């Protein structure tokens, strides 16, 4: 209520002091929601139980990366590239978003907190976008930890000195780009699905069913389809789709895309945009 009162509009004034301080605006609120959601995603500021799952998955990813680095330093060639590690960990990241996305949105729906948010300066779309950005950042952090471990392990163990480090930095950059793409698409798929249900049980179930069921469907089409259909089958499954984008951009990844690389890139962009649009639409229509 940042509008000044005029004397005639007061219904009943029992003489309390008014708030005279600075009012932070919409952007400040949106940033606060983002920071708070990001902390919620990893359970910071909450009980140890809430930290267990997200931080546990993060720790598992880091341990796996450490093992890969140790194995790689013993071999002439690294077992996995930076892009490859993101591609492999995307499967684990789907479990992560299925656990975290309901924490971000379903609890607010279930506990009827939305009226409190929506009666303040930030608009409904700000809420949706702040949550989406927070989830994407959380997923990116899940990829960034292992990437950093791998970089430290490979760049400082090499014998080629500075030139080796520069080369590793260039490769790391490709890994980071991949991680950003994967994080945005996974978050944009998971969050609209999570916002459908106020119960975390069902929200998690919907997300994971969406991710898990698509993989064998695309696998079967790959088996039975003729050439073009087999190359395009990966589009049905989000993780295969992302791996197809890796194949297109960096020529490494787990799926065969034939000459349809740009189609995969376009599909990923459309998926991210559609997810964001559906999420904002959902919060425009949501009953509070």
């Amino acid at each position, binding site marked *: 209520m940042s509008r000044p009162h005029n004397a005639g509009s007061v219904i009943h004034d029992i003489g309390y002091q008014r708030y005279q301080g600075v009012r932070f605006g919409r952007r400040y609120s949106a940033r606060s929601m983002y920071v708070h959601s990001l902390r919620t995603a990893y359970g910071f500021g909450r009980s140890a139980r*809430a930290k267990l799952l997200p931080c*546990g998955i993060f720790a598992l990813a880091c341990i796996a990366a450490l093992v890969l680095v140790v194995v790689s330093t013993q071999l002439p060639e690294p077992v996995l590239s930076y892009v490859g590690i993101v591609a492999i960990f995307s499967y684990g990241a*789907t479990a992560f978003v299925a*656990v975290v996305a309901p924490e971000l949105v379903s609890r607010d729906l279930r506990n009827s907190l939305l009226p409190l948010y929506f009666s303040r300066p930030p608009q409904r779309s700000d809420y949706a976008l702040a949550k989406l950005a927070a989830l994407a950042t959380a997923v990116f952090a899940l990829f960034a930890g292992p990437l950093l471990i791998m970089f430290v392990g490979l760049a400082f163990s090499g014998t080629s000195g500075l030139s080796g480090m520069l080369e590793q930095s260039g490769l790391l950059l490709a890994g980071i780009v991949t991680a950003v793409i994967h994080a945005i698409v996974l978050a944009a798929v998971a969050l609209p699905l999570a916002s459908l249900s106020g119960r975390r049980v069902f929200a998690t179930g919907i997300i994971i069913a969406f991710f898990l069921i698509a*993989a*064998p469907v695309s696998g*079967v089409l790959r*088996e039975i389809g003729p050439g073009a259909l087999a190359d395009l089958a990966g589009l049905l499954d989000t993780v295969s789709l992302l791996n197809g984008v890796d194949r297109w951009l960096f020529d490494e990844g787990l799926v065969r895309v034939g000459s349809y690389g740009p189609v995969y890139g376009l599909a990923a962009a459309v998926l991210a945009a559609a997810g964001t649009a559906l999420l904002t639409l959902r919060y425009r229509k949501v009953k509070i």
Partner: protein
Amino acid sequence: MNLTITRITARALLGRKRALLLLPMPALLIGLTLLANGTGVPAADWGPIVLGEMGITVILPLTALIVGSSVLGLEIEDGTITHILAKPLPRREIVLSKLFVAWGVTTLAAAAPLAVAGAIAGGPGLALGLLGGATLGALAYSAVFLAFSLLSRRPVAIGLIYIMLWENLLVRFASGAKVLSVQRYTTATADTISPSELLNATLPGVVAAALAVAVIAAGTMLATMRLRSFALTGETS
């Protein structure tokens, strides 16, 4: 077993619109089997993916996870569990009734469609094998996830980690993990009842069945013990 609790649980589970959420997965399984069967590509190419990777690895555990953790989990979350706990019933009976409903619904929604898909892909023998294996698997999964729903506030998240990271990832790299994988029990039992090249069993059937029975017993006992000393708390964290 208590008939009233069974009836109430079944109604809470199936009497709402959300019961329709159970339909798409079996429909997709049977639809995909029909589609693949219609193309004339030999079943050896797509059978393991449809029946193994989709049916046994995804649809069966996922259905059991949703159903098994909601039969008791939703009542705990809503606080209506107090009404049941306040009745002069042995806790064992409550757990067994809930488990029975979860098993029945999972069998209907996942094991039966799997058998139908098996019949299309490989004939009645395979269908019988899959029905037997998946029915046993449904009971084992239900017992495990029912126990999870009493051990934790987030049973679905933990069950999901078990399915995705233990059964699907760890078993692939550390084959010793298969001893505690319900998915492996299901496959092995199905393969023992009706040996088929569409199933890749890695455990001997007798061992798998014995382990499954042990898991079912352990899950049920754990759930009963937890329910005996159950403390009601609000949704914190």
